């Protein structure tokens, strides 16, 4: 464990210094990240933007401990991730991080409940009753009551993404990472998803999302712009858009989507 040594204050949950990532495709080398410095405080809601291929997903994967950087230091809650082995990384993905993907990544053969339960079956301490309670809490948080037994193929895109968020929440992680969570959704549904993220953020979760839409990014408190594997701009949003408010002004498209 390395001590924090720079400007990041004591409540800094993610501390990335000089992180780079190079993909080798045969003889060709693709530099996805070239020395990224990024600090995220606990409880922050941050959006990462940038053109396609700028390295957003690569950065998210490294933050989510799905991938390891080639160079640089990544301290997660003051723990140097580069020193961890596969099992310890899996443990972190299980306990500290909830990942939400653009393409939902649900198990198609399992129903909503089983998908949400997934992180719990890989974690030691959650037995029986506790397990049920956690699943119910997650379901409530994403307002999916009544859809428990439905499989992904029987759910709308927005519902699928809510199942995915519930899954990310179920083990009560400190950080939620979402790579283009609204990318496959219409604007109203996207707004609903953002409302859920804002609620979670209000409850104290640190949230990072990648998005291409400025409208979505404006729901967060800080936007980080990535280009060619480097952060070139940061923008603080003084007054983030409230998704709740937005939904009130938006037409009730949702009813039509659900066919109700």
């Amino acid at each position: 464990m390395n001590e924090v040594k720079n400007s990041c204050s004591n409540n800094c949950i993610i501390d990335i210094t000089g992180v780079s990532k190079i993909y080798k495709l045969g003889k060709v080398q693709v530099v996805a990240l070239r020395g990224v410095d990024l600090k995220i405080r606990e409880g922050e809601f941050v959006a990462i933007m940038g053109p396609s291929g700028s390295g957003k997903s690569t950065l998210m994967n490294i933050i989510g401990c799905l991938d390891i950087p080639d160079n640089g230091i990544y301290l997660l809650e003051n723990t140097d991730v580069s020193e961890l082995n596969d099992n310890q990384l899996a443990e972190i993905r299980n306990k500290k991080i909830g990942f939400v993907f653009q393409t939902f990544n649900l198990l198609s053969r399992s129903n909503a409940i089983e998908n949400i339960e997934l992180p719990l079956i890989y974690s030691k301490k959650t037995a029986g009753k506790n397990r049920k309670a956690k699943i119910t809490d997650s379901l409530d948080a994403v307002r999916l009551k009544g859809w428990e037994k439905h499989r992904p193929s029987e759910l709308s895109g927005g519902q699928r993404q809510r199942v995915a968020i519930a899954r990310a929440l179920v083990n009560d992680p400190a950080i939620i990472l979402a790579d283009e969570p609204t990318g496959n959704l219409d604007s109203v549904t996207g707004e609903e998803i953002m409302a859920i993220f804002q609620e979670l953020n209000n409850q104290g979760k640190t949230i990072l999302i990648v998005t291409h839409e400025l409208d979505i990014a404006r729901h967060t408190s800080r936007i980080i712009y990535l280009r060619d594997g480097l952060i070139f701009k940061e923008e603080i949003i003084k007054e983030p858009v409230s998704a709740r408010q937005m939904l009130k002004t938006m037409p009730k498209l949702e009813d039509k989507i659900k066919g109700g």
Partner: protein
Amino acid sequence: MIRFAESVKIAFQSLASNKLRAFLTMLGIIIGVGAVVAMMSIGYGAQESVLSSVQDIGSNMIIVTPGNQDEEQQGFERMLGEDKDRDALTIDDVKVIEKEAEFLNGAAPAILNASIVSYLNKNTRASVYASDEEAESIYNFKVQDGRFYNASDVKNTSNVALVGQTVINKIFGKIEPIGKIIKIDGKNFTIIGTIEPKGTDQFGNDQDNSVTIPITTAQQKLYGIDYVNMIIAQSTTEDNIDEASEEVERILRKAHNLRPGQSNDFTVRNQTQLVDVLGTITNIFTITISSIAGIALLVGGIGIMNIMLVSVTERTREIGIRKAVGAKNKDILLQFLTESVVLSITGGVMGIAFAVIVSIILNRFTILTTSITLFPIILALSFSTVVGLFFGIYPAMRAARLNPIEALRYE
């Protein structure tokens, strides 16, 4: 670490989602295990029925046959048709044995043959069993009607015969056989009795398709020989059968004027030895079955490995998802290993069920007796588990080693 019950549940879910494929994959194991368990039940059944018929005859039987069956060369010469000791045993030997033996109740000679038996214009092929009056007690002939041939019939080479039920059915039909004259190989015989039905023996031979006549008549009037095919003796108790066997050997060696060091021109066997021979046959049977089983399980195992490799590729994304939410390498390993073991054990169980059904059908509708025992079932289950583990480990390791990002990107 994922709980074991959890991975069993996942395994069944995943197999249930592709039932036909799972079944086809298991087919190799089903056929292998089914064939082995069924064959073993037939083997055990045969063994049991042979043992029980051995017990029927009485476990104090000693059988003396001509020629030295313990000498390899003898068998070779016999193959070449030089059956040099064919005439080694005679009725005189029986008399000597009866006179000198202490451990015997009695002895009887026997000549076995098959002949055409006819009555008026009807004829059939039946086995002819020639012996002396002691055969009634020693060989367990039960007379149903009439009488057995007696000592004077044997002495006088009387043309008398007893017939079995199948022969009666074939050539007499409803006619009362006793007192009628039949022809055996063209010679006339008067029927003096009928033999109680015995049914089929363990090899499926009809024991009632037989006639029995005095041995002297057979020797002199039918075959023109002075030797016998075998001598059957009975020890006084089951316990002294080995002493009795040695005694018979000693008496015969003396009667045949064999010098010390000279090998026997006859072979003495008793029931315990027959049971041993039976054991040898069973062992050969078992080895044969095991080799077939081995090949079937190998083929089945390769099938499982193949389908598991396909499954790992198909479910690359699922593996990525599981890893992304915190599955460790060993969790994925366990999941896929469990799946292949579930596949092979389910195949094993279905194979056993199949074998049990086959065995019951055989038992009921054919002359085969079958016997399902625990041993082959346990053996089959352990082998299918081992097959599942052995052929599942490589695909499971491939799955476990997948990089989560690449797995998630997989289309």
